């Protein structure tokens, strides 16, 4: 069984659990897979920008991101479930984002 099959199987398993009412077709599974790969690839490329702070930190972070991505492989179904249309859920992320933004600006002014 190749690596591709393992990922595909796990995605289908998670999807079956999450959305019983929605039919799982090849199209949805392959869409999930594409989204998954896009997500990992672009996050990895984005992490390369850490080199501006310190090259060694970049290597550590890339390794960490790779390991985390491989361990928690189907990230996309979970990410999708987090970004749903529930008001309470959205409100929660909005307030969390407000906190993060305020904290980041204070931190950033001291350290950048």
């Amino acid at each position, binding site marked *: 069984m190749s690596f591709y099959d393992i990922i595909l199987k796990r995605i289908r398993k998670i999807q079956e659990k999450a959305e019983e009412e929605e039919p799982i077709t090849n199209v949805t599974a392959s869409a999930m897979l594409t989204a998954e790969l896009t997500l990992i690839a672009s996050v990895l490329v984005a992490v390369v920008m850490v080199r501006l702070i310190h090259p060694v930190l970049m290597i550590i972070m890339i390794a960490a991101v790779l390991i985390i991505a491989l361990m928690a492989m189907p990230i996309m179904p979970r990410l999708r479930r987090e970004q749903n249309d*529930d008001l309470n859920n959205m*409100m929660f992320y909005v307030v969390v984002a407000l906190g993060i933004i305020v904290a980041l600006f204070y931190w950033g002014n001291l350290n950048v």
Partner: protein
Amino acid sequence: MVVDSQLMSFFTAGSLVVIGIFAALFLDNLIKKIIGLAFLADGVNLFIITMGYKPGGIVYIFLPDMVVSNFAQTASYPLPFALVLTNIVIGASTLAVILGLVIILNKRHGSLSASKILRDKGE
């Protein structure tokens, strides 16, 4: 007074903002959420007014028997007050729109619970 009243007013405004965000985040009933958001707007208004306040100052209305230089030095800052007037009106009109939507949604779902009627519809 031991505590500065302007500082206390800022704290009141801050606690209203915090109460508002708390209510919007953790109370499930839509009416309660809306009341919380009204408090949030009230808190911001109070913050603005407190900022324009000048301890020991006078109202910014120029009466004929006043001396210009004295007025300029002691009057409170009127620009924030003009902003608050606008904001109160905006807040009231937005509130009316929200309440109209709530009435329609209650008619459709027979509920006022945000977790029931504003949940993810899976589309």
